């Protein structure tokens, strides 16, 4: 993608693109009309009791939103659709949206930019089309890709990033990416390298929104423990003493499917394939009957296999509105932003609460503090691996560990490539001493949860 452009260049490019669209589509209107921005102007062209103390009303803020400010929306699903609508109506006209998914029927209850005829098409493309059509002058650029497909040169072009993701790993990744863009001079953070990250998440009737100023406020990894642990049933319960319908379904998914390979050798269970779900459902029913357990339904089976999270339009609307408001406040500097974490729950009545999440002193993502590993020299590499995945502040998924031994870069263990995993597996049962690691040694760890390798310093306890 393009490097950071000067405002004048960008304005010309927007005009060119608008003209092109008018010529191409014929019916698309790109002109503003009388009164179009009157609502937004009331926020930006007059003072008020709630404006930021440093705020000076002017016409420039609106022009910045309309012509210059570039926003990245990550996710074009429940939150993404709402975010795009809100930002476009507020006057943001240069919006990029990234989403790697295609539209499914079950999205249609809340992702209102999509219609039945769009099922199967990329979310990013359809969302961009709809908004560009409905909001003349707004240019949403879609990217049907993973966030990991882009590097720092792409992300650097944006003034603000706002996320509507459904994965903690992805959140940590973009968090890490924005951290990597920070520049420090003599240990002092350069404010112009900060790209604010607004993050929203929802689950059923619950949601949260937070404002992250990389290098300044708490980041995603600082508050990793806030995320509830995933529900995983103990293996012995699943294998021999099931009590819940979920246990029956997990038994079939984890144990029976790999054993019986009902759709062919090596065919992996696909939660989106109704035939697969039907098979799991039937087998789960059989097991449930065996243990006199009730409650196994097709819907439950699908929910357990796909780890489905219930979702509804209203929660997404609230959280997206909160996030979009923060984007507006930060872009315009007109109002004091959320500081910094909002929770929302309307299961029972309506509850909301805001607090200031604190930075973690030794956060592996945003603190400059070198990470430590303390092990006995006779500890096995497996122990180090377990620590990296189980420690609540790290929670890595599939860490790859490398070190410089005898002047050469050595991969100690890597599991994401089968051949390397096989080759390095024996290292797991070797001791750190046997592997040639020394006191004070640096270990570089790569993982899906971060775009940059994390450096750890190894200290021997004995």
């Amino acid at each position, binding site marked *: 993608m393009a490097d950071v452009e000067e405002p004048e260049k960008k304005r010309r490019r927007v005009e060119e693109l608008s003209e092109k669209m008018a010529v191409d589509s014929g019916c698309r*209107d790109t002109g503003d*009309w*009388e*009164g*179009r*921005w*009157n*609502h*937004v102007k*009331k*926020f930006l062209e007059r003072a*008020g009791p*709630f404006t930021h103390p440093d705020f000076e009303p002017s016409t420039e803020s609106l022009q910045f939103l309309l012509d210059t400010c570039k926003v990245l929306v990550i996710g074009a699903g429940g939150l993404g659709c709402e975010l795009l*609508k809100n930002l476009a*109506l507020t006057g943001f006209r240069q919006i990029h949206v990234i989403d790697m998914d295609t539209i499914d*029927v*079950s999205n*249609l*209850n*809340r992702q*209102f930019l999509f219609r*039945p005829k769009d099922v199967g098409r990329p979310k990013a493309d359809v969302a961009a089309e709809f908004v560009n059509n*409905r*909001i*003349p002058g707004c240019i949403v650029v879609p990217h049907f890709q993973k966030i990991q497909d882009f590097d720092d040169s792409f992300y650097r072009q944006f003034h603000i990033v706002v996320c509507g993701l459904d994965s903690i790993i992805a959140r940590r990744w973009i968090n890490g990416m924005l951290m990597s863009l920070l520049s420090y001079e003599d240990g002092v953070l350069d404010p112009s390298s900060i790209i604010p990250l607004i993050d929203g998440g929802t689950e*059923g*009737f619950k949601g949260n929104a937070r404002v992250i100023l990389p290098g300044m406020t708490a980041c995603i990894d600082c508050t990793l423990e806030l995320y509830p642990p995933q*529900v995983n*049933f*103990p293996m*012995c*319960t699943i294998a021999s*003493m099931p*009590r*819940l319908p979920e246990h029956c379904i997990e038994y079939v998914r984890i144990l029976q499917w790999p054993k019986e390979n009902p759709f062919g050798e090596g065919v992996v269970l696909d939660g989106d394939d109704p035939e697969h779900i039907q098979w799991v459902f039937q087998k789960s029913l059989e097991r449930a009957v065996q243990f006199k357990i009730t409650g196994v339904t097709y*819907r439950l089976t*699908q*929910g357990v296999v796909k780890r*489905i*999270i*219930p*979702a*509804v*339009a*209203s929660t997404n*609307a609230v959280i997206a509105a909160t996030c979009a*408001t923060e984007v507006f406040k930060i872009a315009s500097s007109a*109002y004091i932003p959320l500081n910094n974490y909002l929770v929302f729950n309307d*299961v*029972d009545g309506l509850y909301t609460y805001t607090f200031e999440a604190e930075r973690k002193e030794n956060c592996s993502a945003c603190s400059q503090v070198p990470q430590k590993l303390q092990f006995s020299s006779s500890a096995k590499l497996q122990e180090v691996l377990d620590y990296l995945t189980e420690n609540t502040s790290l929670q890595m998924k599939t860490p790859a560990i490398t070190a410089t031994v005898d002047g050469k870069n050595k991969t100690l263990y890597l599991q994401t490539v089968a051949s390397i995993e096989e080759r390095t597996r024996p290292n797991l049962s070797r001791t750190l001493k046997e592997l040639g690691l020394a006191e004070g040694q640096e270990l570089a760890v790569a993982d899906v949860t971060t775009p940059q390798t994390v450096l750890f310093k190894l200290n021997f306890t004995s």
Partner: protein
Amino acid sequence: MFGESARALCKRKRNEFKSGSVAMASVDKGKSTKKQKYDRQLRLWGDHGQDALENAHVCLINACATGTEILKNLVLPAFTIVDGHKVSGDDAGNNFFLTKSSIGRNRAQAATELLQELNNDVSGNFVEESPDKLLDNDPDFFCRFSLVIAVHLPESTILCLAAFLWGAGVPLLVCRTYGLIGYMRLVVKEHTVVESHPDNALENLRLDHPFPELKKHIQSYALENMEKRDHSHTPWIIVMAKYLEKWRSEHNSRCLRAIQKKKLFENLFDKISSGVDELLQDENSKNIKAQVFINQVEEDIGKLKSCVNSLLQENGLVVNVKDDYIHEFCR
């Protein structure tokens, strides 16, 4: 008058039903597509909740941005928009369901078209009339609705509308947004919550007074003689009941307040169950402590009745509690 000015705009695309089995197949296919489409919210409120939504009819007064946003989120129920205004340039600028070409047209009609487009299962209607006029000439118009949403109405209109709806038993939601401030107020006389689907139900299991069969069953477990594996697979209710028995035998429960008892019990439970790892991973473990209520049952019905009565009076409710209600409630 409503009869003349209301033009129902029902754009409902339905499959043409042919005769017999083809029609049935269409209906089944339609039903299963709906189940697929609404799957994510069906998981929240079930089929009955979904039916209730689909059979509701919501009235929105004023199709400004706040109002259309509400209807967008509802999506399912039939809706009628009452709005006498014409679309202005300002309106078209901040409302996703109005466009430049809506300017000058009646706002109710313009918004209905774009909201209707969201979902073919839904029927949208509009009334090009101010609510004041309707209230003057045909207030019964509002009686057909499950809920009326009033956005940005002046106080005089709201008061009149609210008085009428209160009498008619129709819930009213009053909303207003102004810059970064907004409010909403729900006006409903009485609302019954049934078939709720709570995340974490706090159930009072009355473990301090187990019924005879349960007591016998609890006694059949000898926890002290169990292997760790068996212990960790014992249903947590049994473990809880056992420790509760033990705790009560060690404490004279009379002189302590409920909250103190609960704390003491929790401490004992923590001490003893600290070695039992798997139990604490159990799906309900986080609720274990909360779910044990050490009940203090008042056996004198007369005392109970006067207590309940005075509690209600304290809160400004004049209710004379009937005896059989107390019996039913306390059973």
